[in-house]
């Protein structure tokens, strides 16, 4: 480990001034701070200018200045633009540089070879080294909750305490985590894809359209949709969207399951998510027919086939369907063909209060069963696992940094004729003032207590 670090040193002394400048730029926290604020400002741009919209490159009088600027700087696609990505790569490089620069210090601190201390106190006492050692060990245990490592020699003793060395891992963990998350993001951009596919119930599909370009691509399997159900709460709000699917490989069923919002289905690394749905037609229609005597009968019919009334020479054909764009609800257009009469076209709506006259009878549209097409999102991202590893490292790093604290304490006892000289030196990475105060009071009370 140490050899690696030695190699770093000639780099920082530098051979040329430009090289030295670049090295300094990449190992400076000032660069980090500048990049952080710069990224924040640039990220705002993308939330102000509409993203993902196509910009007309050639207007009637050539491209305008604003349009040209949008195109050159990718302002309609900020987060994938060359300059935003460069900033992220620079940030990763800068964090790496800072880490490498600080690594030797962290290792030194880990080994305890550093001579730095947060505070140093000296006392003198008439008691012997042996008795002071036991008194001080006891009282410091009250603060640090651990036993010292003791080195004895003639007329002298050195007590060393060390606590929470793991604290030192927090800083590198957090910063390596950020680099890993950025790498995971890049892997996703280069090797992952996101697409969308719309499949009618009882139909299959083995391709999808890329979200970014709309390009059609093939899946390594076929999705067969067996059903789509939309459940609502009594208040009318949607409760559940569910697609029942089978995944086929060369006609053979490989996996059967349901896809719900928040419950994706994953096969061969590719995940399928419930994204949207569309009403594409109707499978059954419920009509009620009232005759001249006021008797009403309700029928459920297949919209594809013509339908004849029982007691009258009337045939009805459904010509069109409107899934419900107005307050009148879903609507159907039908042709009523009475024998020896001209055909009549009628429109019925589900929410209409009054039935519509059709020859000798009156018709009402009572209800329908829609046929759906389900919209599925198709996603594959080999980088996401890398991002999760980075995220876990980040959380662990924060826990180490916030809930642990490296504390080192050394008490040296030296017998000098009739007195013992006591030197207390301590080092704490956080809460230095509190650490010094608690140690100082522990040592003082121990020394003041009568024999």
């Amino acid at each position, binding site marked *: 480990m140490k050899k690696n670090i030695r190699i770093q040193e000639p780099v920082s002394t530098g051979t040329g001034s430009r090289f030295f400048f670049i090295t300094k730029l990449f190992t400076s926290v000032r660069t980090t701070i500048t990049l952080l604020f710069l990224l924040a400002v640039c990220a705002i741009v*993308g939330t102000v200018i509409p993203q993902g919209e196509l910009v007309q490159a050639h207007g009637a009088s050539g491209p305008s200045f604003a349009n040209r600027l949008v195109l050159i700087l990718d302002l309609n696609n900020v987060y994938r633009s060359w300059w935003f990505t460069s900033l992220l790569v620079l940030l990763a490089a800068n964090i790496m540089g800072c880490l490498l620069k600080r690594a030797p210090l962290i290792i030194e601190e880990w080994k305890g070879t550093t001579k730095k201390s947060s505070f140093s106190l000296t006392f003198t006492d008439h008691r012997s080294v042996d008795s002071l050692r036991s008194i001080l060990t006891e009282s410091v245990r009250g603060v640090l909750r651990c036993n010292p490592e003791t080195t004895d020699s003639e007329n002298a003793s050195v007590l060393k305490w060390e606590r929470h060395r793991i604290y030192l891992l927090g800083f590198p963990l957090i910063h390596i985590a950020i680099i890993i998350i950025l790498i995971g993001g890049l892997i996703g951009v280069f090797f992952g894809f996101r697409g969308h596919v719309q499949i009618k119930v009882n139909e299959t599909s083995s391709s999808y359209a890329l979200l970014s370009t709309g390009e059609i691509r093939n899946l390594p399997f076929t999705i067969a949709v067996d059903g789509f159900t939309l459940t609502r*709460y009594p208040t009318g709000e949607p*409760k559940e969207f569910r697609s029942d699917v089978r995944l086929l490989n060369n006609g053979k069923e490989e996996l059967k399951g349901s896809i719900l919002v*928040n419950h994706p289905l994953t096969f061969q690394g590719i995940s399928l998510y419930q*994204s949207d749905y569309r009403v594409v037609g109707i499978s059954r229609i419920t009509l009620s027919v009232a005759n001249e005597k006021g008797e009403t009968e309700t029928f459920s019919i297949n919209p594809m086939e013509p339908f004849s009334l029982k007691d009258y020479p009337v045939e009805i054909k459904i010509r069109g369907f409107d899934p419900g764009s107005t307050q009148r609800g879903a609507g159907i257009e039908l042709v009523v063909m009475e024998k020896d009469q001209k055909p009549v076209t009628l429109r019925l709506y589900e929410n209409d209060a009054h039935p519509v006259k059709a020859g000798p009878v009156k018709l009402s549209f009572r209800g329908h069963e829609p046929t759906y097409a389900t919209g599925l999102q198709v996603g594959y991202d080999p980088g996401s696992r890398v*991002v999760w590893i980075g*995220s876990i490292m980040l959380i662990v790093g924060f826990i180490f940094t916030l809930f642990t604290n490296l504390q080192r304490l050394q008490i040296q006892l030296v017998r000098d004729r009739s007195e013992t000289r006591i030197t207390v030196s301590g080092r704490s990475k956080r809460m230095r003032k509190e650490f010094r105060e608690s140690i100082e009071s522990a040592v003082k009370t121990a020394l003041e207590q009568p024999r």
Partner: protein
Amino acid sequence: MTSVDLNSYLTFGYLGWIIAYLITALSGRTAQSARHALFWLLVTLFIVHTGSIGLRWAESYWMGIGHAPLSNLYESLIFFAWTILLALILVWKRFGSDMIVFVGMPLVFIVMASTFLIDSQIRPLIPALQSNWLVAHVLTCFLGYAGFAVSFVAALLLLLVRAWPSASALFPKKTTLDEIVYRSILVGFPLLSLGIITGAAWADHAWGAYWSWDPKETWSLITWLVYAGFLHARLTRGWSGGRTAILSVIGFAAVMFTYFGVNYLPGLHSYF
């Protein structure tokens, strides 16, 4: 009594507390006993507030659509007020500064009062919110926001003291304020990070992408970048006092925009 009624009473309770504090301060009764009484009054209000959130949770189960009360703007505001209050009480205990609490309480009051303007009905959970990630995500984000809110209040006070040094006798010491500005962000930042991570995990589960640059996600990242900048400036460049206070104010503006402003931009967090 429903939880909505209880929240209305609490709003007036907070206003009452602010007035009580003013009266005690103006009458010159800075005695320990008066401060003690105010502290316990605030803790009592906090307990009632906690009970109100619990009651709303129970009410949703009585309606047969049980879910954690963190599912719409009304519920999130009530919870936001609760987290700020929690943070203020902790600051009072830790730093012994009741002035910060007094300056922070109007924020709690405004957040509570703003709920009068919006729909307070308990609604069933739409499919997109039916996930165990909901509680983890909202909890961590808002606890982080509370830390930033307290830092913002301390930063305002610090800037005020710097602008009028003659009034400094009324306020806590500058070093104490500076400590609060920094320490609240030190707590808020990891919580916000955790909030973003749980949000990303949830998005990955629900939408198939852990990050889609939706305005809310982007603004939470902007907030994160500002506070990351704050911490690096403070810890490695030795920034403190006025400069970090201004950064804390900018950061909290970003928090507010992430919470409210984004609703005016199109995006996936439209139900919040």
